């Protein structure tokens, strides 16, 4: 559905994207994961034909993003990072505006957006600028869908959104995917990567890996352990100065820990921590999650 072939984009001497290759299949929910400044937005602006690449080609549903940009814009729904809503139009006016621009009506495709739009319909006469962040997000998504696009491109739709609204948003995405719409979405949240069919990990303009979430987890090269103790901050500091430590990273109420060798020297570590005065030490082997894998990729590069 989307073929990104050897795409390079430069701003001055800076490579925002450097020979990027990705292929997204029809009906797929595909995630692009990467830190701020990795090139996610540039990539999406290229896919939506809003930027022209310096090198390479992007084919969307058979159309070239440079030569056939008019055809592409008809079949894509795009929700940019800061939601492209008209703040001085009401909720309803925004939706009608987007429908009209794409040569359709709200009524024609209402079925597709009903699920999402019904949350904000009680506020249909309110100016979009006066909506809360969560409501703006829902309106922006409704506007991006109102012409029933074949492909939906969402640039960090959940940044700054609370944990519960994020879960609801992803439930909506799954339902949209079930309507047969291909979805390309970027996010800085690792737990959301888990919900995609496949993800590409982008860093400094380059693709580090493209795989299923499980495939990325399977790539994790070491045995991973969770460590806990009474004083977790002191545990962080003490592990930093322990000679065996390869990585030690805070994960909520515990530390994810690896040693230089593939597994860990349990006895020696316990002894060291006891010498440092730690109490209630717990060391247990755990399965890595997707965030562990990404942190390892970032460390390697």
């Amino acid at each position: 559905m989307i073929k990104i072939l050897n795409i390079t984009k430069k701003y001055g001497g800076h490579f925002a994207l450097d020979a990027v290759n990705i292929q997204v299949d029809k009906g797929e929910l595909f995630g692009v994961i990467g830190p701020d400044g990795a090139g996610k937005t540039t990539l999406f602006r290229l896919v939506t034909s809003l930027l022209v690449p310096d090198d390479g080609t992007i084919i969307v549903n058979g159309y070239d993003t440079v030569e056939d940009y008019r055809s592409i814009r008809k079949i894509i729904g795009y929700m940019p990072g800061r939601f492209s809503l008209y703040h001085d139009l009401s909720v309803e006016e925004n939706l009608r505006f987007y429908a009209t621009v794409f040569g359709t009506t709200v009524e024609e495709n209402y079925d597709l957006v009903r699920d999402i739009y019904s949350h904000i319909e009680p506020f249909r006469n309110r100016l979009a600028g006066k909506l809360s962040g969560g409501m703006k997000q829902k309106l922006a998504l409704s506007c991006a869908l109102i012409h029933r696009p074949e492909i939906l491109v969402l640039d960090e739709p959940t940044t700054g959104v609370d944990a519960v609204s994020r879960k609801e948003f992803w439930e909506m995405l799954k339902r949209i995917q079930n309507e047969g719409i291909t979805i390309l979405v970027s996010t800085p949240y690792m737990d959301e990567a888990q919900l995609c069919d496949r993800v590409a990990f982008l860093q400094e303009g380059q693709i580090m890996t493209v795989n299923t979430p499980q495939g990325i987890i399977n790539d994790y090269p070491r045995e991973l352990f969770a460590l806990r103790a009474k004083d977790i901050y002191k545990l962080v500091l003490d592990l930093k100065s322990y000679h065996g430590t390869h990585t030690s990273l805070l994960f909520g109420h515990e530390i994810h820990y690896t040693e230089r060798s593939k597994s860990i020297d349990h006895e020696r570590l316990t002894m060291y921590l006891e010498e440092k005065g730690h109490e209630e030490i717990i060391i247990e082997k755990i399965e890595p999650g997707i965030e562990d894998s990404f942190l390892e990729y970032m460390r390697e590069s």
Partner: protein
Amino acid sequence: MNKDLVIKVRGLTKKFGDFVANDHLDFDVYKGEIFGFLGANGAGKTTAIKILCGLSYPTSGEVSVAGYNVYNQTEQVKRNIGYMSQNFTLYEDLTVVENIRFYGGIYGLDKKTIKTKSNLLIEKLGFEKEKYRLIADIPLGWKQKLAFSVAMLHDPQIVFLDEPTGGVDPNTRRQFWDLIYEVSDSGMTVFVTTHYMDEAEYCSRVSIMDEGKIVTLDTPENLKLKYQAANMDEVFVKIARG
């Protein structure tokens, strides 16, 4: 923990017309604490933070910050707090040194103090080579460190961090929490909002707001027990969906 009171809030209520954004909030924040201020979008967090920072008046209730009340001592409140958010912090088209100097001036420090402070800060952060670079040209992790340090340039009693890690990669996020721990260890009070529930675990105590009210306030450990949850994410979902 030292039980010196840094923030005292009793019956804080803020109304916009008929809408009650903050509904009788009661809480204390102690010196050296990392106080997590959580809630769904629209729960009323930003309204409360604006009041605590002396940028907006309560409709009713008693609120003191760093020993000053937020009705008629807002200038003193502002001089004794630091504030950092992800979006509004540093000027991209000024250099590192210029940003420090600018904020020093805003906080009313004299020229000599600004000079001493900025030298100290640059040395501490290891920014000697970068001090004449534009903020736009330095990596995000460094910007964050600088923004955080600049927010404490005037030695405030408390620093407010409003979603300081939004949209940041997992590695930079963790480095930033190292810094938070470090300043809290030195006695600074940290008041922080976040949408990352793993970060809620790093706080000394956490309050969770819903529809203008504080639903619960306790240590992460106690909250997990109370709501029979494996982690703070589950606690949050139970409260916000409950």
